[in-house]
């Protein structure tokens, strides 16, 4: 190593979500809904001194082939009430939630996050996502009102307005001086006025300036437009785990973009999502990883996975048998709704899979396990700590948002065994140093109203 000081690792705990990463069939799998599960994961994360707890969101149940998808976990409680309730049973843990900027209004969302920041004494964070699909819109007043191309334009203006509102009260506006009878310092507290392309609003904001001033903002877009949006607005990027070199390239790209918006590179943290499998020996870890992947890919899940590419009903095929002999349907629309899916050439994809299956004698289920992602980190606690630390010191990431595969106990082993290894290396806190999430993440105090990006 050079004499460059060691970077501190940032860690988030992602409550298991509603895709097949989450294993519900294991006897250890508990409720995804009961509050006690959220308490367990949050307290585990806090005892291990994690930076924050993270909740995802979905605004419509996913569908495949026109039917509600039933093979993965279905249903979850509402993001913000869960985080507010967790504020009651934790003291230092950051509480970050995903809220869609498309199917909400800025006044209401700004009010909710400012409230959460008060209720948690400065631990609130918002993962901003956008969508524009009419499918989700069917649950909301305006339906699918937003053009795909306008997602970031609206989201950017949404954040501009939210920031305007968060800054509309000054820290000292509430005086509550019984002797003089003055409750607020000025009659026009919270006054705002915004005229824009997407929002035309004015009035008085209701929530006093919150402990962090501005809640932490996370963002996850990956297109060039999404990257600029994140670089302009976000405090941290929740991105995909990539191989080390690709991660470094992404990291460099984002830090360059941040600076192009007049911010300093250390004002933006890069936090990939990461899965893991642990064992007392490397062999045991590999074995556990394989067991988990088999649990994640049931026979039915494997068939559905192939159907996304074949665009045909393959339900009559045996998941333990060979790959389907029919050719993919290249004409049909996507069978999936409510979930992002990347477009690939189905014919080429199928050809490649057939060759792989033949070479390795793989059944449908074996193939899907083979081609779906391996855990990001596999190994002994010491080895996983080393892998995490190496990536952080090599500027492939600033830390990770860990996604356990079991609710609610999936982080227990990591917290008990990997975290002490990181602490021994001097790269992870042993006590919380700050009072707010912003302080714990080592981010500069919120400078109000950063310059908006020119491109979005």
């Amino acid at each position: 190593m050079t004499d460059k000081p060691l970077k501190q690792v940032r860690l988030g705990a992602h409550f298991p979500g509603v895709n097949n990463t989450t294993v519900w069939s294991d006897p250890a799998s508990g409720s995804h809904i009961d509050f006690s599960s959220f308490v367990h994961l949050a307290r585990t994360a806090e005892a291990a001194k994690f930076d924050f707890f993270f909740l995802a969101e979905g605004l419509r149940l996913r569908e495949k082939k026109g039917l509600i998808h039933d093979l993965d976990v279905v249903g979850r409680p509402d993001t913000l009430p869960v985080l507010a309730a967790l504020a009651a049973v934790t003291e230092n843990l950051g509480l970050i939630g995903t809220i869609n900027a498309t199917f909400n209004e800025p006044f209401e969302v700004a009010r909710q996050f400012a409230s959460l920041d008060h209720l948690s004494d400065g631990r609130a964070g918002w993962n901003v996502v956008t969508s524009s699909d009419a499918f989700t819109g069917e649950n909301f007043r305006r339906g699918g009102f937003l053009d795909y191309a306008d997602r970031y334009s609206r989201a950017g203006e949404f954040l501009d307005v939210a920031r305007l509102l968060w800054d509309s009260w000054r820290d000292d506006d509430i005086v509550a001086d019984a002797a003089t009878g003055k409750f607020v310092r000025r009659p026009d507290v919270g006054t705002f006025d915004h005229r824009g392309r997407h929002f035309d609003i004015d009035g008085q904001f209701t929530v006093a300036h919150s402990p962090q001033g501005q809640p932490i903002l996370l963002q996850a877009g990956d297109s060039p437009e999404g990257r600029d949006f994140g670089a302009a607005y976000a405090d941290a990027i929740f991105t995909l785990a990539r191989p080390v070199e690709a991660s470094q390239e992404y990291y460099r790209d984002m830090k360059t973009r941040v600076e192009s918006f007049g911010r300093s590179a250390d004002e933006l943290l890069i936090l990939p999502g990461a899965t893991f499998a642990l064992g007392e020996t490397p062999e045991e870890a590999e074995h556990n990883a394989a067991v988990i992947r088999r649990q994640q890919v049931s026979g039915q899940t494997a068939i559905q996975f192939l159907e996304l590419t074949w665009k045909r009903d393959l339900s009559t095929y045996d998941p333990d048998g060979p790959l389907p002999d029919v050719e993919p349907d290249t004409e049909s629309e996507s069978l999936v709704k409510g979930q992002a899916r990347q477009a690939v050439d189905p014919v080429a994809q199928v050809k490649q899979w057939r060759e792989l299956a033949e070479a390795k004698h793989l059944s449908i289920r074996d193939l899907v396990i083979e081609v779906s992602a391996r855990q990001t980190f596999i190994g002994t606690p010491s080895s996983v700590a080393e892998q995490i630390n190496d990536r952080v010191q090599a500027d492939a990431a600033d830390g990770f948002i860990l996604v356990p595969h079991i609710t609610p106990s999936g982080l227990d082993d990591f917290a008990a065994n990997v975290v002490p290894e990181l602490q021994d290396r001097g790269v992870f806190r042993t006590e919380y140093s700050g009072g707010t999430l912003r302080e714990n993440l080592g981010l500069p105090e919120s400078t109000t109203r950063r310059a908006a990006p020119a491109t979005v």
Partner: protein
Amino acid sequence: MTGYLHTALALDGVGWHPAAWRRDADNARRLHHADYWLSLAQLAERGHLDLLTIDDTLALQSESYGTPVPRTDRVRGRIDAVLLASRIAPLTSHIGLVPTVVTTHTEPFHVAKAIATLDFVSSGRAGVRLKVGVSRHEARLVGRREPPEVTLDRLDDPDVKKAVVDAFNEAADAAEVLHRLWDSWEDDAEIRDVPTGRFVDRDKLHYIDFSGEWFSVKGPLTVPRPPQGQPIISVLGHGADPYRLGALGSDIVYVTPRDAEHALGIVDEIRWIEESVHRIAPRTRVLGDVLVVLGDTEHEARTRLAELDELAGEPLRSDALVFAGTADQLADLVGGWSTAGLDGIRFRPATNAEDLPRLVQDVVPELQRRGLQREGYAGTTLRENLGLARPSSRYAVKEAS
């Protein structure tokens, strides 16, 4: 009927008297802090009150209906009531938690999942008070509508009348959507059937396909059926429009009788409306609101009120009856309202600092001595507190029949 009354506590700021904060400035500075509200909830729970409500609007507090009043001597600013209720839920155990939600500018789908989640984090103690927001300045905060200017002296203007009626009709649609969404998962929809690989039985998840004048909602809810099945819906009403909303879509109506005779008339009117809309759910619980100023003697209570009025610079005005007197006298009033047919009382303490402890320490024991209030909680859910059974999902019933 057991003869017991339902008792509720209405919370707004540090109390309902506009000068309450002058006697409680330390807490007034803590109105954005969870601990203050938690201490109130825990005190109310010691008095075995069935529920507490938390007032809220999207707009900043104002002394005038139509426009914001720019003054500095009244409490200003507050946090979101649903999140506040969620924050105190894990640290309380029996009291129902009923935050206020504005239906006019919010998404019914978001409201349904928030209240369902409040029901999960409180283990079955969630309710909601639905409120309309018809003022123009409130609409400007959200910016999607341009309603007519609504002030109390323009209530006969046809445009204003229509705006008010529309807002209540929209609230009734919102209540219908909440009910359907909370039923959209049958109780046993989660099956975790390993042989077939299915986590849910999708036949037990239902599209609600609501389509109305103000919104359409497809469903199902993204949150499974909450512990109470249906969390409690409540409304505050001063006349036929909100009474009709109550009869159509709520479990509780808070009303503001001037006296026992007026209470009798209100209850009659609500029962008549319930019949006219062919209500099939158990009849609404009608709770009378009273703003209370308590003292060891009537003289002391009246002196307290006079002092608060003096601090406020004007006599207290309220939509609810203002009561100043002793715990005994308040129990007399409550007994009279009970005889007139009210199902319960919602107390609005003039000052939380003084009147809430007196309610719990003096009024509750007196009501219990008179057989008007239970000695303890009837159960652990709000529905149980209210004597309401847990309903089956309407969609499950439909299939069974």
